[in-house]
């Protein structure tokens, strides 16, 4: 099965496999569409493809695009029943290859140019921008999208998923954190020069382009998309600036970021499952041009309590990128996993504990990396603990992590305003705190006399006894074990 090349191909594949439903009846863009998406996330239900939107004939919504591992497998062209480790293995395999450069296509071959609004015709309200949650500070244009920018000096392209709220017909405000690629470019280059930063927002991307925009990989997102898809992503030049955007995207917004002028943004339901970050003055995006496909589909991610694609995909890619980082440093890790229900706040690392201090070394590397602001807990377990099995990890944590010796706290590290536990001061200045939970037996303990023995069916009984018991299980009167 080939990976879907566009949002439309992805929707078709999901409908065919039963992982999306077509909703024919009219849906209100004010709260109702958001509520459908939220409920679908909380029930792990098929993704809603809403074909009729109040006030917006000809437009549709696709919600919760990647909020299940089944849909993630479909997006990669894999069997929807693939397990998480299988999907992860495939992701690592594809992203460890050679970068696949994008191809530039003529605008006549770019569906995103089928409709073009410029000048006085530009009005964001002509798009079905949803009010995702009751009480949100505004209607959010960008919840599952890519903000395309290019570094003014290095020239490298960045696709980032920075949320964008519609402030008025031509203005959006967005949360761009100072430690992000775009945040650094604005602070280091554009603000001192008083220059605007060209941007384009692409909505309704292919699922792998969205995955790339969400992934914390050092590989530029257009190349990463090509690696994930196994073929180049098709790009097309913007109408009003030199940026290149995915030709098959549903909607493109072109404009400029005004680095010295900020407007109010938020509050917004966030991936942590709360509205945490306060309404504040944030980055201003001025829109100069809108292009969109006929019968355009706007994608909606509804962030809230687990699990939605913000948690699922970010946990997935953060964990795998951290695994690459740790392995590149020679750390004997056997796997890294972030459970989506941790809202990608806890990294669980399996390691062969061959030397002392390895848990702290892992924590320091992970927290000190560019990815560090996005999580604050590292739990290190041995290679015999199944990192994907929360029961085993939780047991290891509660029994092996020494309350005085095994918990290591780091203060005043980079954080985000989105941490629910952070003080108001910490949120305002993106100050974080980090913790490592060392759940390894100390290497200076005698493995025979000091290390406790795990008492479990698979660990303490001879193999022949285990087999006898398993073979006779139904004969004992138990139902078969699935």
């Amino acid at each position, binding site marked *: 099965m080939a990976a879907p090349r566009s949002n439309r191909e992805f929707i078709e594949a999901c409908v065919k496999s039963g992982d999306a439903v077509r909703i024919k009846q009219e849906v209100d863009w004010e709260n109702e569409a958001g509520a459908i998406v939220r409920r679908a996330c909380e029930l792990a239900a098929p993704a809603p493809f809403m074909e009729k939107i109040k006030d917006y004939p000809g437009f549709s919504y696709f919600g919760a695009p990647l909020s299940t591992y089944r849909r993630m497998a479909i997006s990669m062209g894999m069997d929807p029943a693939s397990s998480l480790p299988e999907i992860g293995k495939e992701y690592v395999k594809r992203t460890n290859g050679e970068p696949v450069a994008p191809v530039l296509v003529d605008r006549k071959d770019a569906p995103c140019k089928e409709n073009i609004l410029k000048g006085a015709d530009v009005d964001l309200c002509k798009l079905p921008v949803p009010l995702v949650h*009751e009480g949100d500070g505004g209607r959010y244009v960008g919840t599952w999208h890519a903000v395309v920018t290019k570094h003014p000096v290095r020239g490298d392209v960045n696709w980032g998923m920075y949320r964008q709220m519609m402030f008025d017909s031509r203005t959006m405000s967005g949360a761009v954190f100072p430690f992000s690629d775009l945040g650094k470019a604005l602070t280091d280059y554009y603000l001192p020069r008083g220059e605007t930063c060209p941007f384009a927002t692409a909505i309704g991307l292919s699922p792998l382009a969205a995955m790339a925009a969400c992934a914390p990989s050092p590989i530029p997102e257009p190349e990463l998309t090509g690696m994930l898809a196994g073929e180049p992503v098709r790009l097309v030049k913007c109408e009003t600036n030199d940026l290149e955007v995915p030709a098959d995207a549903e909607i493109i917004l072109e404009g400029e970021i005004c680095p010295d002028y900020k407007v*109010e943004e938020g509050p917004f339901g966030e991936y942590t499952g709360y509205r945490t970050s306060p309404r504040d003055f944030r980055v201003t995006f001025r829109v100069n041009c809108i292009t969109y496909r006929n019968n355009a589909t706007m994608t909606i991610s509804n962030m809230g309590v687990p699990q939605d694609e913000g948690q699922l995909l970010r946990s997935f890619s953060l964990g795998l990128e951290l695994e690459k980082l740790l392995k590149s440093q020679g750390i004997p890790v056997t796997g890294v996993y972030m459970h989506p229900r941790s809202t990608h706040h806890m990294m669980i690392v399996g390691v062969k504990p061959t030397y002392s201090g390895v848990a702290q070394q892992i924590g320091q590397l992970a927290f000190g990396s560019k990815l560090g602001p996005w999580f604050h807990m590292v739990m290190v377990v041995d290679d015999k603990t199944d990192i994907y099995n929360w029961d085993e990890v939780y047991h290891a944590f509660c029994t092996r992590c020494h309350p005085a010796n095994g918990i290591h706290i780091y203060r005043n590290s980079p954080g985000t305003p989105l941490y629910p536990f952070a003080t108001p001061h910490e949120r305002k200045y993106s100050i974080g705190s980090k913790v490592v939970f060392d759940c390894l037996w100390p290497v200076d303990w005698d493995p025979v006399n000091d290390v406790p023995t795990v008492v479990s069916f698979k660990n303490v009984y001879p193999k022949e006894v285990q087999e006898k018991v398993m073979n006779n299980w139904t004969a004992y009167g138990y139902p078969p074990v699935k």
Partner: protein
Amino acid sequence: MNQWEVYVNDVKELAEDAEIELTIRTLNPGIHKFTYKRVRAQLSSDLKKHADQLQVRLGRGQLSPSRFSIKVLGEIQRMPAKYL
């Protein structure tokens, strides 16, 4: 009559019977619902004093029971001219 909404951290920020600046969003039905503008306005807790109505939300989106009538005196253009 127009319906407006404002976000504040504390309802005490909304001084009555004085000219104040606010960022308000329209709640009037239609495709422009929830778009913002910066205005000069006068407020009153007497809901009949001014023709337009203002409801209030707090920092995390909670709807406040406080209601005001509002008179929008004029729009303020905050955006620097170079961006217009």
